[in-house]
Each structure stands twice: as structure tokens, then as C-alpha cells.
């Protein structure tokens, strides 16, 4: 009987255990301990948020103006987003948000309008007009890695936006 300890069989078993451990650690720890800087999710969602915000502004502005949104009349932002589904599927389809290069993204989108007095207080709660809360889509509260696009707008037919309102699109 040979007295050598490290036989090829021992070695193969040891290597397998080590390999499984390394793979296991990398697979499970990823996303918590390694992700010390901003999540790539935000970088992936940022263009989606920008595109959604641009789509909303371009399709709801008063003809011939910039950043002046039609609010409560036909074709207004309130009417079209309220008529949309809870997940804003219509917005996602029309603005082309469901297209991604590497993998098919399925973003969740929240659109919020913040009025002037809330901005004055430095807060971010949605505006309330005639009992309607001006926030559409799933709630983004307590979500991690949310990409956000902020646009400065005015709404027609309401005194909430003196001097400005914000249109905030959050994507995660």
C-alpha cells in the first residue's frame, strides 16, 4: 500500500468540492455583497424612463408649444393615462418601452405629477386635483434600483402649476 495521501481520486474530489463552492458563492452572493456601486438595473432602466417621459410630453403638449401639457380635456395626459390599464400597458406599447437589445425587458412604470406647492416644500408626493391623485401605474414606494426621469412642465386648465409642475417617470 502506497503511503501517499494525495491520490488522483482524492484530488478530483477536492477539486469538485472547491469548484462547486466557488460557483455557489458567486451565484448567491452576487447582487448583495458585490453590488457596492449603482445597480446595472438602473442603467438599463434609465433610457426607458427618458423615452417614456419624452413620449408623454411630445404627445400631450398643446399644439405648437413646448412643455405645455394638455391636462383634463380630450387627448389630455389625465384622460389617456386614466384610460390605460393599471400597469400602463398602453403607454409601454405606444412609447416602445418593451424593446431591449440583450433581453426582453419588462419594465414597470409609474408616472407622477408633482404640483408647485409640493415642490416649494421640497417634497415629492403626487398632486391631487378634484379628488384625483395625479399618479398612474404601480406604486414605486420602497422599490429598489428605480430609474427616474424628471421633466419640468405646465398643465393647462388647472392652477396647480404656478409657476411649474414636474412630470416624474419612475421605471424599475
Amino acid at each position, binding site marked *: 500500500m502506497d503511503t501517499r495521501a494525495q491520490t488522483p481520486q482524492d484530488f478530483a474530489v477536492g477539486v469538485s468540492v472547491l469548484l462547486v463552492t466557488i460557483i455557489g458563492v458567486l451565484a448567491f452572493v452576487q447582487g448583495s455583497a458585490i453590488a457596492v456601486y449603482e445597480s446595472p438595473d438602473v442603467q438599463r432602466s434609465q433610457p426607458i424612463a427618458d423615452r417614456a417621459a419624452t413620449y408623454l410630453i411630445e404627445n400631450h403638449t398643446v399644439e405648437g408649444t413646448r412643455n405645455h401639457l394638455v391636462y383634463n380635456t380630450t387627448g389630455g395626459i389625465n384622460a389617456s393615462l386614466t384610460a390605460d390599464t393599471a400597469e400602463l400597458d398602453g403607454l409601454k406599447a405606444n412609447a416602445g418601452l418593451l424593446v431591449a437589445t440583450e433581453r426582453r425587458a419588462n419594465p414597470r412604470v409609474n408616472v407622477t405629477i408633482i404640483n408647485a406647492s409640493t*415642490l416649494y416644500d421640497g417634497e415629492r408626493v403626487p398632486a391631487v386635483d378634484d379628488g384625483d391623485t395625479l399618479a398612474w401605474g404601480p406604486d414605486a414606494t420602497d422599490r429598489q434600483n428605480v430609474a427616474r426621469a424628471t421633466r419640468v412642465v405646465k398643465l393647462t386648465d388647472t392652477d396647480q402649476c404656478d*409657476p411649474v409642475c414636474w412630470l416624474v417617470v419612475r421605471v424599475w
Partner: protein
Amino acid sequence: MRGQAYTLEGVLAAIVVVTATVYGLSAVDTGPFQTGAEQRTAELDARAADLLSLAAETGALQNATRCYSVGAPTLNGNQTGSSTEFERMLNYTFDRQGDEYNIYLSYWDRDANDRTTVLVSQAANQNAADNPADAAVATETVTLTDDMPTRIGDCSGTGPTLSVVGDYFAPDARPDSIVYNVVEVRLVVW
């Protein structure tokens, strides 16, 4: 036999190292590192451009331009002294959110035969903070004509026309034409 075992051991060890490296690289993001500051600058960029668009749209920007130097010594959102619509927009969009900015007006100076830029958000240049390298910049152009009235008395009243008033900051770029001057408003936010 022993030589073969050493070779096999070497090959297996190399496989382990290479596998771990490849797997590790695919598990973490090795792309260029985007800091929170760049994200913030991109957001400020959108807000600055939107604010100037909206101010130009509503005429608030032109009003403020006609008021600077005759009706108000500075244009900023501090809400002291004058508070034009443009300054209120600045206050709500940047001051109240804790962002800093400088505003410059650039006009054609006929005597110097060149464009001249003045800082209008502070009373004196020494008071102005330096813009950091990653500040967001937005510009908008305002065309002034000879017969436009200036704004006086904290920008609330209508004064004499631009071609008549003496102490307006910009000179008449072309005295023989209806155009008084073309002013570029530059907003630098950080």
C-alpha cells in the same frame, strides 16, 4: 506515472482558476463605472433645458431679460427684491430642491465687435461659485426688438422702450434695423 499525475494536477488546477475567473467576471459588471453624480447631472440637464424651454414658451424669459439691469440688479430664484415669473420658476425648480446655478446673458457688443457675457445671477462676480466640471448646461436665445418696452420697478411695471432707455446692459447691436439684440441665456446647474 508520477509525471503524468503532476501534469494532470496542473491542468485541473488551471481549469479551476480559469473557470473561477470567467464565472466571476460574468457575475459582476466590469463595464465603466457610472457614478451617482453622472446620473444626477443627466437629470439636472433635462430639468434645466425644460425650464428654459418653458420660460421661453410663456414669455417669462423675455420679460426677465428686458428687466435685468433696469428693473432688477440680479436674476435668480432667491426671492429677494424682484420676483418675476422666471425667477419663481427657478426658485421652485432648483433653489427649493437644493441645487445651485449660475445664469449668464451673452449679447452682441457692437463696440467690441464680439459677444460679451455677463453673470446675472449674482450682484458681483466675486460672489459667484465656480461651476464644477460636471455641471449641466442649457441655453435659450431671446430676440429683442427696438420697440419692446423695458420692465422696471421690480419687473412689474412697463418702462420706456429698449432703444430709448440708457442704462440697459446690452447696447443696440444694429441701430439701423428693428432688431435690438439677440441675447443668449445660459443656465449652468450643479
